[in-house]
């Protein structure tokens, strides 16, 4: 019953159960922390054993448990290079999120219970190889987000939370229709991803089903024009929830686009690729320009997330091996980077009680650690070599440029140009808010990050630098699996 992968779900589940019976606030936090640390070590262990085991089939550690026999639904779990790296990302962000939520004092138990429910949703999503089970875990993660934002958030939190819940539910409704179409119109009558990939989905069906599933997952990853939940949701959420939202939850969408849409329906992906590229370029450019106008640090980062997540979809839409590699790296890089960004903004807000760029200034003098954390996140965001953002965006651009045709070339150039805009807003915000003149007297003696906040930031920074300096580690991990996806596209394009 208990195998390698189901432990990923069971650890947060048991943490949650333990918390349920704990009375003391500090004890609850300690249990949550212990669970997160355990989970991260387990994820690292999983990666090590994944690398060491022979890749005899596409997915490793596959295990199938019968769930709903009448409907042919099985709980199938299995991982490939892409999902195993997403799992590690999740565990790192969860641990960092727990660490920065240490000062939460209101409804502590509910807060950490919801965080673990959210992480169960993410882990379950990444390990499942059955469309129905994937859908189950995807929806599982929606309501905790709603409650986290609505209860512990700030600003117009109720509006943002409701907007987020309704838009994400619309996304899942689209996904549901798409996967039911696949289920009933394929002869196999199965949700099993491996089997569906083997048998192949009829082209006619792909043309109907692909837009539904891709748009559905796209809503989760801020596909233009359904991105509107991102700025409101991210800025109203409490720090850890913003980290989860941007770091993990948006990646559920990206991973879903890759696994359920692009991998299962290559023909439709090729046919619709121009639309995908167009929408993602709009998201990249529009997101970047909208970021320029923001005066609130959190809104700034939220809009820049729209822009950065556009790169993920751009990578998928460009259809070749390099660009898909880039899309996966961008998912992980963006997950780590925004988590770091939101963590540092949260720390700044906690001390200065403002997130307005105009009101801040010179805080690096009193808080060198937090200030430099913010700047590191910013540099990663604008794609400075040495950080993970550079690796990701560079790979996507190289891949995108390989495509023949005016349309793809122009799109690539526009996407490249957005980096300049990114540099503008990142540097401007850092110059004004972090360095620069001290804006208020009370900013002179603010307390720097405490141990928990420092360890959360250091954890994320190490991961970012690791990808930045040794990108081959990650690329080797995912290369084989992205190749399978791109090979499908390649066959279709060349057979034309």
């Amino acid at each position, binding site marked *: 019953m208990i195998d390698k992968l189901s432990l990923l779900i069971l650890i947060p589940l048991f943490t949650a159960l333990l918390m349920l019976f704990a009375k003391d606030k500090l004890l609850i936090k300690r249990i949550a922390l212990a669970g997160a640390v355990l989970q991260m070590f387990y994820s690292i262990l999983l990666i090590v054993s994944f690398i060491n085991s022979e890749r005899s089939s596409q997915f490793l550690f596959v295990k199938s448990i*019968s*769930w*709903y*026999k*009448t*409907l042919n*639904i099985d709980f199938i779990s299995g991982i490939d290079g892409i999902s195993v790296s997403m799992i590690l990302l999740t565990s790192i962000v969860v641990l960092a999120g727990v660490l920065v939520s240490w000062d939460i004092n209101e409804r502590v138990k509910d807060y950490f219970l919801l965080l673990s429910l959210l992480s169960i949703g993410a882990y379950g999503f990444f390990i499942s190889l059955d469309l*129905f089970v994937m859908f*189950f*875990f995807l*929806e*599982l993660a*929606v*309501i905790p987000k*709603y*409650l986290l934002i*609505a*209860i512990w958030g700030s600003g117009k*939190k*109720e509006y943002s*939370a*409701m907007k987020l*819940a*309704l838009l994400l*539910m*619309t996304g899942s*409704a*689209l996904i*549901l*229709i798409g996967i*039911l*179409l696949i*289920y*009933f119109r394929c002869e196999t009558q199965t949700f099993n991803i491996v089997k569906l990939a083997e048998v192949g989905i009829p082209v006619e069906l792909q043309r109907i089903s692909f837009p539904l599933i891709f748009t559905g997952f796209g809503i989760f990853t801020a596909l233009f024009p359904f991105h509107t939940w991102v700025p409101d949701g991210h800025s109203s959420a409490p720090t850890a929830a913003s980290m989860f939202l941007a770091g993990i939850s948006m990646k559920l969408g990206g991973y879903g686009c890759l696994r359920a849409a692009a991998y299962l329906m290559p023909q439709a992906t090729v046919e619709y690729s121009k639309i995908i590229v167009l929408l993602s370029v709009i998201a990249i450019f529009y997101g970047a320009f909208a970021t320029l106008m923001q005066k609130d640090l959190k809104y700034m980062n939220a809009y820049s997330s729209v822009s950065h997540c556009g790169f993920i979809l751009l990578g998928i839409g460009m259809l070749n091996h390099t660009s898909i590699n880039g899309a996966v790296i961008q998912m992980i890089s963006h997950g780590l980077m925004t988590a770091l960004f939101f963590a540092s903004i949260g720390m700044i807000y906690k001390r200065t009680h403002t997130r307005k760029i105009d009101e801040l200034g010179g805080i690096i003098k009193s808080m060198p650690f937090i200030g430099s954390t913010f700047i590191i996140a910013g540099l990663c965001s604008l794609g400075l070599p040495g950080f993970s953002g550079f690796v990701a965006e560079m790979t996507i651009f190289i891949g995108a440029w390989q495509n023949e045709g005016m349309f793809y070339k122009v799109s690539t150039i526009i996407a490249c140009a957005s980096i300049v805009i990114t540099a503008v807003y990142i540097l401007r915000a850092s110059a004004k808010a972090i360095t620069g003149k001290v804006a208020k007297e009370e900013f002179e003696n603010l307390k720097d990050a405490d141990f928990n906040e420092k360890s959360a930031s250091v954890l994320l920074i190490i991961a970012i630098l690791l990808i930045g300096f040794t990108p081959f580690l990650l690329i080797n991990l995912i290369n084989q699996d992205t190749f399978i996806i791109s090979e499908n596209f390649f066959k279709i394009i060349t057979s034309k």
Partner: protein
Amino acid sequence: MTLDFFRLMYPELSLILIIFTLLIIKIFDLFKQNQSLISFFNAIFNFYFASLLFSININSGELFNGMYISSSKFAFEKLILTSGTLLILLNSAVWLKNHKHLPEFYLLLVSSLLGMQYMISSGNFLMFYLGLELASIPLAALVNFDLEKKKSSEAAMKMILLSAFASGIMLFGISLIYGTSGSLDFDILQTSINANKLNIIALIFIFSGFAFKISAVPFHFWTADVYEGAPFAITAFLSTISKAVIVFVFISVLSPIFNNLQFLWSNLLLIIIPLTIFIANIFALRQRNIKRFIAFSSIAQAGYILLGLSSNNGLGFASSIFFVIIYLLSNIGFFAVVSAVSDSMGKEEIDDYKGFYKNNKKLSWALAISLFSLAGIPPTAGFFGKIFLITAGAATNHILLIAFVALNMVISLFYYLNIVKKVFVDSSQAPLADVKTGLSAKVSLIICLAGIIIIGLNGALLEYITKLINL
């Protein structure tokens, strides 16, 4: 024969025994407002009722020349009704304790339940009609059980008039059927009903009667008023048990009889389903009273059940029954909290629940879990129930309908989340004080919540129901 009589009709006979005991108690006025005796009686009654649950009748057979049919499928359906009623009774113990006419309450409720069981087991339209009337007339009296409230009497009047009207229409349909085929036996009707015009009119009449009972649009107007006027226990009963029985009867009686006219009634349902779900959702958005809210929410839920029924296959029927069980648990769980609040403070408006979390943490979570299950959010069972209904509907290939229904889940999410928001997020000057729930209500709530969480995550129940359906 005599032995068969007891062996097959055990569930109904036990209910009749209860009814006669209650009659004797009432006639000789044994209670005379003796509080300790009443609570003793309550306990005995509930215990006896619960013991019915363990008497699952798995003997198949017929009585009275096929008038009464018993099978393991019917026994399972009756079990659902009985256990649902027991949960509702447990919830309403506090309210009942202070009521003057306790024996009558039980008398009427059990009579109604008896009528429902006869409906399920009927093998002939006469028997069916008898059960239907036995099920609906006592309910109208029960709606009037909040004796001091004017609204309660008004609701009862509405209910009895409209329900008589619906029964009349249905009876007219039945008489037309008798005219064309010369028989009322279901066995014979299954083969003799064909697509002549009289039969089609009969089908439409009988379906209208059904649509009224399950309160599908456009026969839903009575629902909100009656639910609002009735006492909480009866609102719960109306919205769960009396809907469940219609679903069961549809599956085991109507769909086989009208199998030859399937093209007609499934097309009728295709019009009714989107209308029911959409209109109910739109109205539910605007409700302020919690009972009116649950009335519209239950109309929308009925639309989802009809979606499963419209597919007319084993999967659709199985997932309808599966959903009915889940819906029963979620709705009764919701009522357990709401009626506890109403009993101890008399608050029935949604706005009264602002800041409810402050003093009632456990009840708040219970309320939220029931609402999530009604909205169809994992990991609660409601998610699986709804998804399987939609899956069954998708088997009929009406993709636009499925898309419409799936997107309507988003609208319904809005109004369910709105209550969750009131409970957890909003703050109030004077939040409701700590609500005291009785032991029996706690037991019922725990059963409901455990069911909501376990039934979905475990695939065994759906499999069992599918097996029963395919027997």
